[in-house]
């Protein structure tokens, strides 16, 4: 096997990309056992999953729609990871972005769409940036662990959202009706992102793909991006090289939050057209803030790798929803399955790193052999 990889270096790349798939399949395997315990036929169930994700034009469009926020969050996660910080706060940043964007649309119902939509997306981008910058600032200047602070920021965002949607931002119709469902009024139809009728595919998907290319250019072709990556790779060396390390830590979490915020804004203008909550932590986001992390890992922490990765993960989620409806298993099955996929994908990364080290070791020893051969002259 080692000979095979030695002869075909590109096979390594394939292995790296293939590994998360294997991990996901393993997670689905465990899910199948769970289904059997609950007297559901896993073959029928996963058939429904495939059909739900790819079975028709509509299914495929839904997969792309689901992939959109995942891709944007994953871009944010890539920036954070490359900058050496872990952003678990995508959930909260996404909520803040969605809230801010909704607020723009509700405040200016009379203005034309070509003014409001860009303004709302920018506002959402900034709101997410603020929610990401706070833990970044605390990390950079007060040494507060960003994993913990971002989790707390998520919880604060959820409660803030619940309050806003129950009281000041609630749909006036809901206020009159006794139901008081916590949601805002529907935004003016003039603000809907262009849609590929009759599917639900909207322009946001295209924007997200463009964003992926922009993030790639930013990280690898600009000085600011270079500094972020330098700090992520080696903060000490960066400091000696004169890079302001704390400022770049703030910047990576700020930008990371900004893309999560943009994801929230696009969810509102492309898909929901209003903000809503079911009171729970994952009701509005559908765990996109967490799943984006897995997508980023799937895509090898590369902005362009995140594009196919988000598509696959979107398919998994759309398919799982179909599975849940067809098999009549409680929706909590999806959350549990989601957790399994996260665990399996991060766990499987072990083999990628292990083989990467062995590969490096082989390259080094080969170089040593060739250089030794040259020495006798």
């Amino acid at each position: 096997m080692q000979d095979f990889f030695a002869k075909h270096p590109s096979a390594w790349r394939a292995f790296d990309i293939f590994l998360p798939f294997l991990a996901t399949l393993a997670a689905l395997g465990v899910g199948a056992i769970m289904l059997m315990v609950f007297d559901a036929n896993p073959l029928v169930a996963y058939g429904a999953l495939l059909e739900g994700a790819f079975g028709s034009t509509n299914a495929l469009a839904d997969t792309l729609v689901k992939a959109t926020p995942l891709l944007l969050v994953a871009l944010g996660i890539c920036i954070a990871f490359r900058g050496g910080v872990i952003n678990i706060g995508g959930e909260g940043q996404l909520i803040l972005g969605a809230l801010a964007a909704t607020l723009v649309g509700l405040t200016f119902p009379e203005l034309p769409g070509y003014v409001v939509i860009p303004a709302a997306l920018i506002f959402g981008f900034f709101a997410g940036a603020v929610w990401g910058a706070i833990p970044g600032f605390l990390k950079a200047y007060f040494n507060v662990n960003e994993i913990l602070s971002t989790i707390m920021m998520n919880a604060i965002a959820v409660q803030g959202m619940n309050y806003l949607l129950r009281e000041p931002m609630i749909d006036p119709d809901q206020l009159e009706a006794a139901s008081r469902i916590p949601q805002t009024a529907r935004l003016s139809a003039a603000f809907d992102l262009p849609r590929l009728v009759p599917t639900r595919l909207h322009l946001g998907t295209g924007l997200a793909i463009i964003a992926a290319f922009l993030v790639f250019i930013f990280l690898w072709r600009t000085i600011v991006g270079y500094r972020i990556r330098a700090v992520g790779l080696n903060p000490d060396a960066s400091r000696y090289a004169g890079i302001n390390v704390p400022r770049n830590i703030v910047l990576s979490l700020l930008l990371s939050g900004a893309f999560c915020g943009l994801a929230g804004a696009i969810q509102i203008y492309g898909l929901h057209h209003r903000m809503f909550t079911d009171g729970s932590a994952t009701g509005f986001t559908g765990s996109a803030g967490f799943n984006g992390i897995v997508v980023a890992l799937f895509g090898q922490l590369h902005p362009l790798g995140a594009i196919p990765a988000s598509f696959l993960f979107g398919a998994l989620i759309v398919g799982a929803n179909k599975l849940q409806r067809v098999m009549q298993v409680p929706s909590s099955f999806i959350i549990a399955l989601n957790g399994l996929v996260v665990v399996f994908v991060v766990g499987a990364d072990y083999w990628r790193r292990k083989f990467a080290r062995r590969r490096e070791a082989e390259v080094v020893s080969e170089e040593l052999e060739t250089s030794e051969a040259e020495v006798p002259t």
Partner: protein
Amino acid sequence: MIAELFTTTVLVGILASGIRLATPYLYAALGETFGQRSGVLNLGVEGIMLLGAFAAFYTTFITENLWLGLLAAILVGGVMGLVVAIINVTLKAEQGISGIGIYLFGLGMSELLFQKTMGTVETVSGFAPVYIPFLSDIPILGEIFFQQNIMVYLAYLMVPIAWFILGKTTLGLKIRAVGENPEAADTLGVSVSGVRYITEIFGGVMSGIAGASLSIAILNVFQQNLTSGLGFIAVALVYFGGWRPVGVLVGSLIFSMVNALQLWVQVLNIPIPSDFAVMMPYVLTILALIVAVQRVRPPAALTKPYERGG
């Protein structure tokens, strides 16, 4: 209306609930302290608590035996701790992310099992208050401290036990060595993975008990997302407590008192939106973290998987 908070009955009520509500924090955070001292951050405490809470509740509901319920939570917690160890220690996963996976799994799985086995919210009669002879008769103090149930007393008892094990035993020394300088510990023949497996399984067991303390000793009910963020705060409490059992005790009490106050504010109908009341502990956690980390340095190897010769 605010004045109503300052009557003796209400104050005693708040303090007594505060003492009681510290229980889940104590179990979960003390368990997590062991893990973090050995260098492993288990962010999945919340998910394990939920599974433990369900296991304890369902077993008690079926068998009507609280101790069997507690045992079920211990077993489930131990198995989950083992899973965490496999992922974080053997597979060296990124601990911040694997913990979220464990959390989502516990959140979904506990609800799924609840839906499939029970479906409707039921209650059990949990551990009854144990009146400590003589002490419970002291006015005010007796009511606050000595009329709690056995799970509460045990939680507080765990503080000196944890302090003793971590600070005064060989095992504790090994745990601290592995968390501070795994290379040196390894050189001296301490099994880094072995120690971390022990602390993670112990942490899982303690998280399971923390969940059980909610479902069969304090709230005596199981419902979706019963723990609602307690497990995440418990992880932060370990940081706040400076990785020391006594610090964890102080942090747990501060937070449980805030929780108790929040409950009574709602009971007395004081007009603060409940969302803000729920939000308070998280804001407090961030502030607490800012204060705490200026004083103590985390274990040097925390969140860093150990590689021999690496």
